[in-house]
């Protein structure tokens, strides 16, 4: 049950975390994009203004130097400028071009800009130069019959923008991861009450009817807690009422049964002097009274075990002796007894009466349904004591392997009892007695044919 719940719970947790993360991602990405665009625009504007002003200043200087007439040498003017590899200046006079560097000619300037400047307008244009972003500014200088251009390579700006971009990306990623973590935490916190409900419900299902939820300070949760706890109380009361009913009925039957049994025995004693029909009737009556007595005794034992009236009465027991005594007491036909040396030499803390009942009932069950037990084995299995009772009967079909431990369960042909003298309570008692030992009992198929009943209880040396 819990295994089918767990993935659903995990999915919900993942979903909440994913929602948080996605929300944070969208928000962070939007903010980063806007920030980036604003930063880019601002930085570009600033750069453009700077570049433009620089060009105008340089252009004015060129005009002043060359304005005196054709004697002025544009190359000298260009030399006087503070030129770097990120910045080049050109002077056009008539058809002649002068450049501040030797590497690049006027061809680097976009034609549209040259056309604009040639028409007497100043202008600027962004373009790509050898794969780098660049900006060209052109200023016509009518006084020299030419124009002044400067080209700036803007890769620094790109680097700055790249740093900003990376920072924003990292920030967005961090935010997303943080949001996912926050979402997981929040989901876990929110789901904790659900988990508690689930755990408590599982405990109730496992038989711990006293499982309750703790009171919560949150009013929303408190409502769940109150409802759950009242449901659990109602369930507990109901189960207790049912159990008490069975126990009360059994108690009420004890006195009449004692009378019946004694009377039947008196009749049985004088059966020889009765007519044969009466003798048959007495025989039937005596047999059924005995069985009736056994049912009542076992019902009482079962209800006492379920109500946990008797504490587990642990004492040092040699299981080997116990098994030998049980087998000699309850059956005569041969049976393989395999007690491992470790089990044989260790005194174990067991409730002798209960273990006796467990083994006796398993032998009885094998006799009624499995043509008699063929082997009984006990050995240590790590932290557990393992007891096996085998038979070579028809085995237990898979669909009935848990139901055989239900009270009054008699297998597929439950209507047809035939000569079956069992009470139908033996295996239910086995379950209860094993359970108070903190153990488990189940049935498995054997190789070939037959059933193997396995009891496992904690290995507790005395």
């Amino acid at each position, binding site marked *: 049950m819990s295994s089918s719940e767990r993935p659903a719970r995990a999915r919900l947790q993942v979903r909440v975390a994913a929602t948080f993360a996605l929300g944070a991602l969208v928000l962070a990405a939007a903010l980063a994009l806007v920030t980036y665009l604003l930063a880019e625009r601002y930085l570009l504007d600033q750069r453009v203004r700077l570049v433009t002003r620089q060009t105008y200043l340089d252009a004015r200087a060129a005009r002043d130097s060359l304005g005196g007439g054709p004697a002025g040498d544009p190359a000298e003017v260009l030399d006087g400028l503070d030129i770097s590899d990120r910045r080049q200046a050109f002077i056009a006079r008539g058809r002649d071009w002068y450049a501040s560097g030797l590497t690049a000619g006027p061809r680097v300037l976009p034609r549209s800009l040259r056309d604009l400047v040639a028409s007497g307008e100043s202008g600027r244009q962004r373009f790509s130069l050898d794969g780098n972003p660049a900006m060209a500014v052109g200023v016509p200088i009518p006084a020299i019959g030419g124009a002044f251009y400067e080209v700036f390579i803007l890769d620094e700006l790109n680097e700055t923008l790249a740093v900003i971009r990376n920072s924003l990306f990292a920030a967005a990623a961090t935010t997303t991861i943080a949001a996912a973590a926050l979402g997981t935490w929040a989901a876990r916190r929110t789901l904790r009450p659900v988990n508690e409900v689930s755990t408590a419900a599982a405990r109730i299902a496992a038989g711990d009817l006293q499982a309750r939820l703790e009171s919560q300070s949150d009013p929303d949760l408190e409502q769940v807690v109150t409802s759950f706890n009242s449901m659990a109380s109602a369930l507990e009361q109901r189960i207790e009422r049912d159990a008490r009913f069975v126990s009360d009925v059994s108690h009420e039957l004890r*006195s009449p049964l004692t*009378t019946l049994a*004694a009377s039947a*025995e008196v009749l049985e004693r004088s059966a020889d002097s009765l007519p044969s029909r009466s003798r048959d009737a007495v025989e039937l009556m005596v047999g059924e009274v005995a069985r009736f007595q056994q049912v009542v005794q076992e019902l009482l034992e079962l209800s006492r075990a379920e109500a946990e009236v008797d504490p587990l009465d642990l004492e040092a027991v040699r299981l080997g002796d116990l098994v030998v005594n049980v087998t000699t007491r309850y059956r005569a036909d041969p049976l393989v007894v395999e007690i491992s040396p470790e089990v044989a030499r260790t005194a174990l803390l067991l409730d002798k009466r209960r273990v006796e009942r467990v083994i006796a009932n398993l032998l009885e069950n094998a006799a009624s349904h499995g043509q008699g037990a063929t082997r009984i084995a006990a050995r240590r299995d790590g932290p557990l004591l393992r007891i096996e009772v085998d038979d070579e009967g028809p085995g237990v079909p898979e669909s009935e392997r848990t139901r055989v431990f239900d009270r009054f369960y008699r297998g597929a042909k439950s209507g047809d009892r035939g000569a079956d003298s069992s009470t139908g309570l033996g295996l239910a008692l086995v379950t209860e007695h094993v359970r108070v030992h903190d153990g488990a009992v189940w049935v498995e198929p054997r190789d070939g044919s037959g059933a193997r009943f396995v009891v496992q209880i904690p290995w507790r040396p005395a």
Partner: protein
Amino acid sequence: MVEDDDRIRRALRLALEDEGYEIDEAPDGEQGLVSHVRNDPDLVLVDLMLPGISGFDLCRELRKTSGVPILVVTARSDTHDVVAGLEAGADDYVTKPFAVKELTARIRSLLRRTSPLAPQPERLTFGSIEVRPDAGIVCRDGQEVGLTKTEFRLLCELAFHPGIVLSREQLLERIWGYDYFGDARLVDAHIRRLRTKIETDPADPNLIVTVRGLGYKLVP
């Protein structure tokens, strides 16, 4: 037989008379006491659930004056009733519903007078305790101690094997006639009662000692 249920009484009387026993019936504790004084029975069968004086009180009253074997009939086999009944002085118990065979087996076992164990010494002495198995007498500092038959048999069993640990199963088998699966609480309760009668300090016994996980032994 002290039993308030008229029908059970009648049925058990029929069944036990078939076994050759003579029965005196009493429907409640008061009449049970009267009958005990008047008829001096070999064994008293007491239902623990009685109107008026409870079965427990009846056992205690009987024990003040008598060592007669008492077999109690309990409604439940739970620890509390059984132990309380044994503490009140019962020698053994059967749980309702029981078969008459079970009851007669218990009665026979309680009526067995002597331990079947062979040669019994005339007297055994352990510190201030003197046991005379043939006379059925136990003296402490020369004063006779009143033991019930079961207590006496238990003490003799231990006294015949001084220093040897007897398991609860062995004691159950030899004194009560149970097999390996008898109720060990019978032994424990009787040992406790025996100690209060013969030990100097029953809380710290030095005559009948418990050997944990094994059983009991008498220290010579």
